[in-house]
């Protein structure tokens, strides 16, 4: 029997009832992690030794009744975009291959205060730029959902290592970040629950910035309750992040199990298309019907400026990225390529340090930041306001929106969606949420035609995570998604 089969709440109950101890939990998850590392390449920097030491300390705390919290000793994985003091933090880039974090991110500090133990820094797309975890300088991550055809599939991205780690039962929770869908999309492709909270809910202090007005940290878990419990631990005002909202701490899990009768759920008509995988369409309709059967009102809504979301996203995100990445000069940190002049050091270090995708986005961002393009940049920001106003208008009459998370199942490592409309739809489902700063969750609703997971997305109004979890829990209760990845079955990690 492996303790990896238990979720966070179950592990916590086992600890409280003295049926297990942290060192046993950590040990089993390290075994699973080693298997996953060989086959799936989920870690950039495993920290198993440190985790084992921390587990022994947690054992002692539980023994003496001084446990940090009900979660003291439970393992987690951390996307390698979070600075963890004294540990290598690479952002999946050669540029930061030798970078040791001089301080701790607020979100990881919050989780460590509750006693969660990190098993290591997880693989991701380089500098969070990608949606398949194939741009990492440390090799691609493989989705633990493998079929008998033996084709290696993508776990999604950029939080691909995080999603693969949870779906492979290496950890019951992993931290991700979401700038345009990078938690929700991998959650969908790996059969997980992934939440992007409202912008300003979790501190961005100590998270290497991609696009500062879009980035947000969030949890990936195997069920809705775990996700809410983790958000309780992660979230909280931090004066070191000027974009945070000072709000009273609430229990995000409080509405789980409550009736959804009386809630109104909107279906945005601009998100429908005959290009959607038929299974995705079927699940979308079935979930809407199910919610209606439990007393929710289903209405069609319109978000007219949806079609401009991609142009706005690519203009603004690339500009912010180009600006944020200007700090990487090879002088104060990062792999330096020695040269005779400052300018040469900058150029050579930056060129050598990054992969193609990062450099491409910097170029695009630089274009949008040119003085002669200033008015165009302002125009993009104004259209962003129109997109956001679309959501504000519909949230006057609906509580949540129900949409697919992705157009279909996970694709092969060596292929990508080729149909431009399919690629467009894939991005549209998720980027609009980041532009508006809204919260959204992806929950697994079943398997597609290939036998791989499909996720549905719930988008809520600002700071409505409790309502999102309430409806997500109802969906979870009704769909009974009990499938696990072939990796887990093969290695008996769920028994």
């Amino acid at each position, binding site marked *: 029997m492996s303790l990896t089969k238990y979720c966070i709440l179950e592990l916590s109950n086992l600890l409280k009832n003295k049926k297990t101890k942290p060192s046993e939990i950590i040990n089993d998850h390290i075994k699973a992690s080693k298997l996953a590392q060989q086959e799936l390449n989920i870690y950039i920097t495993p920290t198993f030794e440190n985790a084992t030491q921390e587990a022994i300390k947690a054992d002692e705390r539980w023994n003496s009744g001084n446990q940090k919290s009900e979660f003291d000793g439970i393992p987690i994985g951390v996307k390698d975009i979070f600075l963890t003091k004294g540990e290598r933090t690479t952002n999946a880039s050669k540029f930061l291959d030798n970078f040791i974090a*001089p301080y701790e991110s607020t979100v990881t500090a919050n989780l460590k205060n509750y006693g969660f133990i990190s098993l290591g820094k997880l693989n991701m797309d380089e500098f969070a730029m990608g949606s398949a975890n194939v741009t990492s300088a440390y090799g691609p991550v493989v989705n633990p959902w493998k079929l008998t055809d033996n084709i290696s599939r993508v776990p999604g991205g950029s939080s691909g290592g995080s999603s693969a780690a949870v779906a492979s039962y290496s950890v019951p929770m992993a931290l991700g970040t979401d700038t345009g869908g990078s938690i929700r999309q991998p959650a969908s492709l790996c059969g997980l629950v992934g939440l992007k909270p409202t912008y300003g809910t979790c501190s961005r202090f100590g998270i290497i910035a991609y696009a500062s007005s879009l980035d947000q940290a969030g949890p990936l878990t195997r069920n809705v309750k775990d996700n809410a419990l983790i958000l309780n631990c992660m979230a909280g005002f931090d004066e070191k992040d000027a974009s945070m909202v000072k709000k009273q701490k609430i229990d995000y899990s409080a509405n789980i199990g409550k009736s959804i009768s009386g809630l109104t759920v909107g279906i945005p008509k601009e998100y429908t298309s005959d290009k959607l995988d038929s299974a995705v369409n079927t699940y979308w309709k079935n979930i809407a019907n199910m919610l209606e059967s439990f007393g929710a009102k289903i209405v069609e809504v319109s978000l007219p400026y949806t079609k401009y979301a991609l142009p706005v996203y690519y203009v603004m995100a690339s500009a912010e990225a180009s600006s944020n990445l200007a700090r990487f000069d090879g002088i104060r940190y990062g792999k330096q390529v020695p040269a005779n002049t400052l300018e040469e050091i900058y150029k050579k270090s930056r060129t050598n340090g990054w992969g193609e995708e990062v450099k491409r986005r910097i170029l695009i961002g630089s274009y949008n930041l040119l003085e002669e393009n200033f008015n165009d940049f302002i125009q993009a920001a104004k259209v962003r306001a129109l997109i956001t106003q679309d959501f504000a208008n519909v949230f006057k009459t609906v509580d949540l929106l129900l949409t697919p998370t992705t157009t279909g199942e996970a694709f092969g490592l060596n292929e990508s969606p080729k149909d431009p409309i399919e690629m467009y739809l894939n991005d549209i489902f998720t980027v609009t949420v980041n532009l508006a700063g809204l919260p959204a969750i992806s929950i697994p609703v079943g398997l597609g035609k290939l036998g791989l997971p499909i996720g549905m997305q719930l988008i809520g109004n600002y700071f409505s995570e409790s309502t999102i979890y309430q409806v997500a829990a109802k969906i979870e209760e009704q769909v009974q998604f009990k499938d696990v990845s072939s990796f887990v079955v093969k290695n008996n990690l769920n028994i």
Partner: protein
Amino acid sequence: MKKLSDKEVERLVKISYLELDNEFINNSAQSLTNIINWVQELKSIDTSSVQPMFCLADFLQQNFSTWRNDDVVNNASVNEILLNVPEKEDVFIVVPKVIE
């Protein structure tokens, strides 16, 4: 469809502090063309009565920032600050000569 000229691409590469070969630039041509065309697409929208939104605080018209007293706060030691400096000497970061 508008395309960037070689000179314009060269300028972008220069201000981005990158050194890029022709192969990379050719591979990136489509992405660069896309962004230019997307910008054109956005120009057609009437935004005469709209305020730009750079982040959520702009839209919600709330001041998210907090202020603290202008007091010295020592959050990092010299060792922490210099931890990842590729070339250092004592407490100094070593760089090539910048003044002739």
